[in-house]
């Protein structure tokens, strides 16, 4: 594909040639592009355009995305998502259009990519933990996501183990892990020698302090 170097109007962004331009695999390649740009920490932005929808301008540096689409009708299974990468300078003005919390978009892309499977850069047997929580006051979530997050924030765990721990929501584990990864809050820890498998269950201290309050509060509020 030829270079598409061009001014972004005010010079804020310049389109560059990219092997990820115009791909046809739904959100999978969008997730790969976000992951790869995040890993190299390059001053780059990404434009994602699902099917004929409004594009999303992803600015990983500013942790925002720019779009007139507020994600209330996020296309979870687009046939095609166009992906373009851009050079972004910290001195550039923000693109035109409403600036939105990037977490919301990355969370949706992660959960919608790879057809419910694990992203190729994640391993089902590698130990992971979370370094932060998603901003659950902003992103759509279920009680499963809260429980999974609380577990991963406090315990080093593999994806395989998570599937066993959350059997009723096992199908949702890979998508959530993909989303954590795109958010940049999933830490891969060096493999440790395996010890005897221990069940993870509430300890006596927890019972004393809250007595399983979470489940009763969930019932009380109808979550």
């Amino acid at each position, binding site marked *: 594909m030829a270079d598409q170097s061009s001014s972004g109007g005010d010079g804020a962004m310049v389109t560059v040639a990219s092997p990820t331009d115009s791909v046809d695999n739904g959100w999978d390649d969008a997730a790969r592009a976000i992951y790869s740009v995040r890993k190299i920490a390059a001053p780059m932005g990404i434009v994602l355009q699902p099917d004929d929808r409004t594009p999303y301008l992803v600015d990983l540096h500013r*942790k925002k995305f720019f779009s007139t689409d507020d994600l209330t009708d996020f296309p979870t299974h687009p046939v095609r998502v166009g992906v373009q990468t851009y050079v972004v300078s910290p001195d550039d003005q923000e693109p035109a259009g409403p600036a939105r919390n990037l977490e919301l978009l990355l969370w949706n892309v992660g959960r919608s990519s790879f057809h419910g499977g694990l992203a190729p850069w994640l391993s089902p047997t590698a130990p992971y933990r979370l370094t932060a929580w998603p*901003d*659950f006051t902003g992103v759509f979530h279920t009680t499963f996501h809260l429980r999974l997050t*609380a577990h991963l924030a*406090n315990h080093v765990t593999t994806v395989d183990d998570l599937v066993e721990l959350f059997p009723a929501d096992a199908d949702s584990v890979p998508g959530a892990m993909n989303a954590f990864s795109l958010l940049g809050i999933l830490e891969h820890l060096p493999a440790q020698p395996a010890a005897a498998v221990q069940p993870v269950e509430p300890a006596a*201290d*927890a019972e004393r302090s809250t007595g399983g309050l979470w489940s009763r509060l969930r019932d*009380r509020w109808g*979550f």
Partner: protein
Amino acid sequence: MAEHVVLFTGPMGAGKTAAIASLSDIDPVRTEAANTDRVTADKATTTVALDYGEITIGPDEKVRLYGIPGQTRFEFMWKVLMRRAVGMILLVNNDNPDPIGQMLYFIDYFHELYERGGAVVAISRSDVGLGPTREEYYSALAAARPGLSIPIFSVDARSPEQMKIALFSLILNIESRAAVPSRYEEPRQ
């Protein structure tokens, strides 16, 4: 009667009163008086004693919500309330002159409560002005207190739904922290 005490801590003007009002089943008990500290928070009144609300879980179980007075001159009350609490929601207004410093101050002060139970940081007023990002709060917390597992959310303290998520996450995090370590972790002492 099973009772679970949750503290709402943080500096003046962070939204503790609003947060309790968002969650409480009853009309919150508010003890406010004329604000004599207008330099610290531009607010007509500020809490000088306590805010109180409650959530009824069942006929024999309540969650009691206590908002502490934000000024440091009321530290003696913080200690009293901390003894009974299972956790805290620390509200920090993002337009505070030093919101990260405020977060670290309250985390340090209530560290015993964190060790015994848990904490959530709720960043209010992040929609006004240019305060730190959530990532900057996490980075500062990791640098000052490595190893803490504290959820940090942006909130509108007036939103019942958002405050429910914060409280829900606090309880879930307390229970999850106390679970048996996985095979990849050292047993806790």
